[in-house]
């Protein structure tokens, strides 16, 4: 299984600011994803982070709000832009193994005041 490190693990932010979350994997992976888990809710896929090209966003998520970078096969960032209290969530980076399993980072718990 891959070891996935996310930074920051948690943060408290002011409304209107932006925060960038980093995801580092200890091995090269093709498929990398960003999920959101709102308080008391299940996981929702935000986007697939594509290496060398623009991310593929799911319905309800747009690049202006959640810009994603994927400069190489081991690293990705997710930015939550112009934050509001509704953005308070856990943001999870995940990678897919060759066997088709998803492995997750510990998550970044974001609180927007």
């Amino acid at each position, binding site marked *: 299984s891959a070891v996935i490190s996310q930074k920051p693990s948690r943060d408290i932010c002011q409304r209107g600011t932006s925060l960038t979350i980093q995801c580092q994997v200890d091995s090269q992976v093709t498929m990398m994803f960003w999920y959101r888990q709102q308080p008391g809710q299940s*996981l929702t896929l935000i986007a697939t982070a594509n290496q060398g090209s623009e991310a593929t966003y799911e319905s309800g998520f747009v690049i202006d709000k959640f810009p994603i970078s994927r400069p190489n096969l081991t690293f990705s960032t997710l930015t939550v832009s112009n934050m509001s209290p509704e953005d308070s969530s856990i943001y999870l980076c995940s990678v897919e193994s060759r066997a088709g*399993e998803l492995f997750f980072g510990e998550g970044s718990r974001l609180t927007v005041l």
Partner: protein
Amino acid sequence: AQSVAQPEDQVNVAEGNPLTVKCTYSVSGNPYLFWYVQYPNRGLQFLLKYITGDNLVKGSYGFEAEFNKSQTSFHLKKPSALVSDSALYFCAVRDDSNNAGNMLTFGGGTRLMVKP
């Protein structure tokens, strides 16, 4: 479209008793099914998966799950629950049909409470 349902928000069981956490799914092709566990303030941990083969799948920490195609279910089970099993459990499904992409759909989660 693919979907997955976990009909119970919470399951309570006494330590040492068997436990079942229910999951049903809907796909247009064949299902790839997964169970994940989330401990407090942690990310999700992979427990087990069904892709093909034996309907009974064994996973981590003594958990197992049974794939039932006729009932479109993939219930998680453990013969003897531990207090340390208390956590949030998520079932997930992926449709293997060509137009489904790589998207994994998660159920709403079931909180398992194991009491001493």
